[in-house]
């Protein structure tokens, strides 16, 4: 059985770094047959449409490789700004922190792929 990947983004990424992250992550999921990816963005102070799209791409590609992506620790100001910008991170599930994100991933694995069954922590961001 595959493991979970935890990725912490420490700095505000410029485009090339963000694209590298996307391809590195997909390769790693593939190599380790990971079933879950946690992306900790608590140190990220802005997400614009480009960065938002990268996160969305990661979630979609991970899904194709049968892994679930959870974004954790989004700063409140970032979440509010994303809504006003008009960007909905479709397919990207979010959780308050790494621990809750892990719980979410574990619950998902037991419940199979049924997204509707897991609604805790998912509605507050």
């Amino acid at each position, binding site marked *: 059985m595959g493991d979970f990947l935890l990725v912490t983004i420490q700095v505000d990424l*410029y485009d090339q770094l963000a694209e590298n992250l996307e391809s590195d992550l997909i390769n790693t999921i593939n190599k380790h047959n990971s079933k879950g990816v946690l992306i900790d963005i608590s140190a990220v102070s*802005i*997400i*614009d*449409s480009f960065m938002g799209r990268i996160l969305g791409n990661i979630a979609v590609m991970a899904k194709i490789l049968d892994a679930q992506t959870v974004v954790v620790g989004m*700063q409140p*100001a970032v979440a509010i*700004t994303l809504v006003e910008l*008009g*960007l909905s991170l479709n397919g990207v599930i979010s959780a308050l922190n790494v621990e809750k994100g892990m719980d979410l991933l574990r619950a998902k694995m037991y419940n199979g792929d049924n997204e509707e069954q897991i609604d805790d922590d998912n509605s507050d961001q």
Partner: protein
Amino acid sequence: MAITKNRSMMITATNKVEIAIVREQDVVPLRNRVKDYGVKAGMSILNQTKLITATSELVRNLLKYGGGGKVLVEEVNNGRDKGVRATFIDNGPGIADIDLAMKDGYSTGKSLGLGLPGTKRLVNEFDIKTEMGVGTTVTIIKWKNG
């Protein structure tokens, strides 16, 4: 052609800096510079975040569609509030139909088409001027309490 949101009566501007933007590596330093101005104006984290996100969208357009250009950043004051003004100037191809470009979801770059309409929602004043073959200038202001 031009579209303007909420033009204020009387604004004084100080401490202007001009930052050249020629490649994507110039984006993060610009964002940091704009953040410094937001902090100095006493903006909340939320308003700083909105201002920096708007800046990021516009500078991305300037690079992608305008072929690069420059950004002016200033402290502004309208007598009631302090704020930050950023002006994005390129000598690119211009925008054929601004009304269309301002619509959510319209993109000639196979993207989300959120940059311009989203930016307008994030700031307090938004002004775009464009002329085909001459270039595009977008000016935004975020007020401290806006």
